[in-house]
């Protein structure tokens, strides 16, 4: 219970932020906010011994018990790792933002409210065991990310980036919700734990593949996988602390979390293994290839993030492969699971520090354009050191954490060659080669990032500001992260024991019963020239040569068609969707009542005639009908003539008079059909109506007084003819198939004894069904009041202003 409420601690704290931001203006609001993630981090550290021992911690807060929806905080190795990343890096980012965001110029209240909202959302995503509350928090991360990207909302680029990320991640989120609902339909529970428990039954279901694809769509959009990565580079318009926190260390890893969390269920399908691995490797290559093209520091880091997320994704796919193989190959895939979690941890550390360095450079030199930067090494030695550590770790060099995870990654990719259970055997080799080339590009852009910024010639004339070292407070957070990056290299097995192995046990429960079973030992030196090591040496050797020649071949990126960037595709589809919807509604919403009437009449005819045919409901019965008399025939002929005259009348007066004729003929028909009250009413009312028609006719404006010729319209005639035919068929069918006798016998028998009347129709109107009459009187009153209102109330227009409003 308490640990569920803790999820909401940041959002609860956010309630006080606007107050602090407004009232306590002497202290930067960030200092107060800092307490929240820091306390949570320390609190969650306390879980480490319990969780690394293989225990899990569950707390539940019912939300909608009747539907089985509740907030469940489920802390195992995987969620604890993410929780620590969120709160730990969250603390560092808040600390960094205190120095990054100006107290007087920025709206700090907004910033920290959004950030705390995001923190709750993210904690909720990683700790939720109930898929519905997981989805709730998932969308909350999209919304708070949207708000944070659009933080400087007066800039066009910010709003564009915010909208783009919103569109793509919410699309994925909705797909994911569909996947969750399918899982519920298959398993009958919203709990992930219980779903994992019933994996063998789930695999049998025909819905299984669909839910797999839908959940993967959610994960791929959130984690910026190919082809959904395009929102991430545009999200770089956010303030740098946001980019560091959301778009490198936490939110974009929500998709990885999702894949890792659902691996025990979906890895049972080979489709999952191949899809996750292939898309991951493709994203890895694509991101690293385009990162070299970028000239903006944060652009390089954005593509690098995309690429590294692809790397982790491919490792998770390989980890899923362990479900299918046994023996020696199995031990290889155990390493993939370990590598995925290990690199996830490493990446959060070094990418966070790199973003912070990019922010420092931006802050102190005034630009992030790498073409203007250079030679900052002497001016900003501390930032340079941090950037060097981060970049070399990203490139995968010793003595940094990235080296170890890169080696493990290569092991994982090498082992994929042995996984030829379902796809052609050579596919694993293709993946390996692509992964190697991608690592080569990773090496190049890492060097490009750090050396392009800090070495070479200093160009003070191109910089908006006089570059100098950042204040110490700003350097604290990246320095701590850089320290972690180095420390990981020397104590990988400590990190492995406490953090990585519990998470691996959660991802691959089909392999390990407890974290202690994860028998992976990381070492910087495996003794001898392993294939992994020789591949790394190859990357370094070729990478150095290519980096040396970079100025020669970087311009060739200009030749690579812009269409490959997929942004064009997104923009075009947006324009197409908007313009297409606009054109579509314009095409049928013309504003002419006639057209709308045609739609309605056509719809009615199609539905009624369609069901007459489909249900074979048409029937005509000629016996038992009332005989036809001469009076009826005469009246019908008059009626037909009058109605025809109305139709073809050239002048309005003729039409009105013949309408009157129709009315009087109907009254006479009422006489013939023995309905005296109807005949009386019809006569009177027809007279008044015709008078009214004549009034309206008399007041026709002069300009349109000339009676234009009635053009015969074929379309109208067809619709009208169809409606007439439909009504005739309908009337014949219903009169021929009467199912029940009339209830009127009751009225006829009781009209005198019960109601004391002789005129049955009148007794029905005022006694048996008096309510109808009451409200019919109301209708007449309303019509009368309305007519008086229309005639008497003349709000004259004041000039033209009324119209133009």
């Amino acid at each position, binding site marked *: 219970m308490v640990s569920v409420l803790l999820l909401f601690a940041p959002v609860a704290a956010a309630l006080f932020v606007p107050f602090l931001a407004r009232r306590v203006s002497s202290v930067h609001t960030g200092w107060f906010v800092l307490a929240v993630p820091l306390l949570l981090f320390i609190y969650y550290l306390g879980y480490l011994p319990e969780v690394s021992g293989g225990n899990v911690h569950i707390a539940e807060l019912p939300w909608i018990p009747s539907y089985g929806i509740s907030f469940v905080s489920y802390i195992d190795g995987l969620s604890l790792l993410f929780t620590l990343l969120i709160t730990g890096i969250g603390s560092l980012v808040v600390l960094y933002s205190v120095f990054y965001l100006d107290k007087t110029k920025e709206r700090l209240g907004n910033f920290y409210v959004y950030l705390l909202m995001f923190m709750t959302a993210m904690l909720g995503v990683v700790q939720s065991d109930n898929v519905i509350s997981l989805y709730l928090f998932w969308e909350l991360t999209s919304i708070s990310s949207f708000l944070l990207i659009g933080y400087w909302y007066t800039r066009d680029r910010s709003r564009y980036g915010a909208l783009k990320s919103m569109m793509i991640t919410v699309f994925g989120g909705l797909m994911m919700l569909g996947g969750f609902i399918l899982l519920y339909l298959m398993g009958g529970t919203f709990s992930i734990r219980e779903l994992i428990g019933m994996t063998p039954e789930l695999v049998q279901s025909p819905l299984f593949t669909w839910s797999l694809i839908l959940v993967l769509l959610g994960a791929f959009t959130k984690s910026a996988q190919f082809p959904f990565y395009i929102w991430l580079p545009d999200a770089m318009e956010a303030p740098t602390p946001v980019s560091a926190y959301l778009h490198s260390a936490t939110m974009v890893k929500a998709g990885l979390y999702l894949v890792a969390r659902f691996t025990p269920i979906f890895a049972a399908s080979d489709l999952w293994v191949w899809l996750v691995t292939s898309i991951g490797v493709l994203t890895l290559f694509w991101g690293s290839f385009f990162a070299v093209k970028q000239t903006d520091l944060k652009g390089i880091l954005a593509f690098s993030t995309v690429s590294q997320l692809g790397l982790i994704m491919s490792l998770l796919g390989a980890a899923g492969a362990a479900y299918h193989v046994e023996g020696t190959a199995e031990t290889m895939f155990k390493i993939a699971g370990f590598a995925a979690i290990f690199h996830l941890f490493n990446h959060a550390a070094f990418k966070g520090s790199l973003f912070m360095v990019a922010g420092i450079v931006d802050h102190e030199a005034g630009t992030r354009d790498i073409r203007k930067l250079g030679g900052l090494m002497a001016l900003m030695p501390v930032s340079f050191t941090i950037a060097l550590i981060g970049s070399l770790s990203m490139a995968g060099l010793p003595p940094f954490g990235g080296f170890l995870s890169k080696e493990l990654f290569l092991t994982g990719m090498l082992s994929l060659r042995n996984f030829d259970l379902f796809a052609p055997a050579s596919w694993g080799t293709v993946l390996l080669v692509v992964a190697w080339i991608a690592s080569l590009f990773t090496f190049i852009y890492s060097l490009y990032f750090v050396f392009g910024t800090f070495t070479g010639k200093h160009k003070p004339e191109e910089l908006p500001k006089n570059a100098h070292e950042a204040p110490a407070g700003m350097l604290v957070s990246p320095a701590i992260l850089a320290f972690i990056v180095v420390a990981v290299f020397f104590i990988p097995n400590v990190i492995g024991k406490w953090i990585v192995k519990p998470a691996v046990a959660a991802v691959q429960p089909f392999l390990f019963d407890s974290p202690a079973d994860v028998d992976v030992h990381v070492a910087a030196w495996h003794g001898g020239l392993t294939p992994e090591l020789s591949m790394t040496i190859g990357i370094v050797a070729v990478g150095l040569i290519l980096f040396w020649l970079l100025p020669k071949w970087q311009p060739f990126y200009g030749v690579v068609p812009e269409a490959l960037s997929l942004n064009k595709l997104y923009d075009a589809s947006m324009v197409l969707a908007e313009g297409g919807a606009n054109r579509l509604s314009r095409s049928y919403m013309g504003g002419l009542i006639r057209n709308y009437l045609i739609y309605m009449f056509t719809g009615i005819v199609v539905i009624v005639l369609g069901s007459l045919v489909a249900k074979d409901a048409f029937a005509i019965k000629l016996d038992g009908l009332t005989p036809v008399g001469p009076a009826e025939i005469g009246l019908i002929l008059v009626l037909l003539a009058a109605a025809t005259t*109305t139709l073809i009348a050239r002048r309005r007066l003729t039409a009105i008079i013949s309408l009157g004729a129709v009315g009087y003929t109907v009254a006479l028909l009422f006489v013939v059909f*023995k309905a005296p009250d109807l005949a009386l*009413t019809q006569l009177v009312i027809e007279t008044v109506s015709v008078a009214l028609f004549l009034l309206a006719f008399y007041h026709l404006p002069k300009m349109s007084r000339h009676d234009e010729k009635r053009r015969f319209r074929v379309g109208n005639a067809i619709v009208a003819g169809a409606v007439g035919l439909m009504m005739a068929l309908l009337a014949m069918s219903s009169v021929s198939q009467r199912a029940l006798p009339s209830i009127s016998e009751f009225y006829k028998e009781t009209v005198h004894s019960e109601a004391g009347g002789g005129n049955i129709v009148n007794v029905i109107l005022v006694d048996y069904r008096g309510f109808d009459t009451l409200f019919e009187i109301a209708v007449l009153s309303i019509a009368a009041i309305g007519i008086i209102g229309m005639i008497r109330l003349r709000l004259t227009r004041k000039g033209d202003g009324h119209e133009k409003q």
Partner: protein
Amino acid sequence: MEIIMSVIIGFLFMAAVYLMLSRSLLRVIIGTGLLSHGAHLLILTMGGFGGAAPPVLTDGVTDFVDPLPQALILTAIVISFGVTAFFLVMAYRAYQELETDNMTLLKGNDEYD
């Protein structure tokens, strides 16, 4: 008789719909008038024309026409009269203010789409 009346009702509906689709506002309202006539006759026809005498108690008569459809039609006539009167005055006001009865011109302004 019922079959013939069905055909007549169909004809009235056809004429009404054709008029409602025309360009002049007055003709649209004439169309609604024809439509209500058609509907009233339809109700009457659906009740059947059986029975020898009007539904008023008279000595020695037991075979009355079905009174229920007549009561329904009476209500419908009054309501359609109220609505038609309202429409006509509205059309009259529209003529006065807008000086046109052409439905094509009454579709509003593209500016306010």
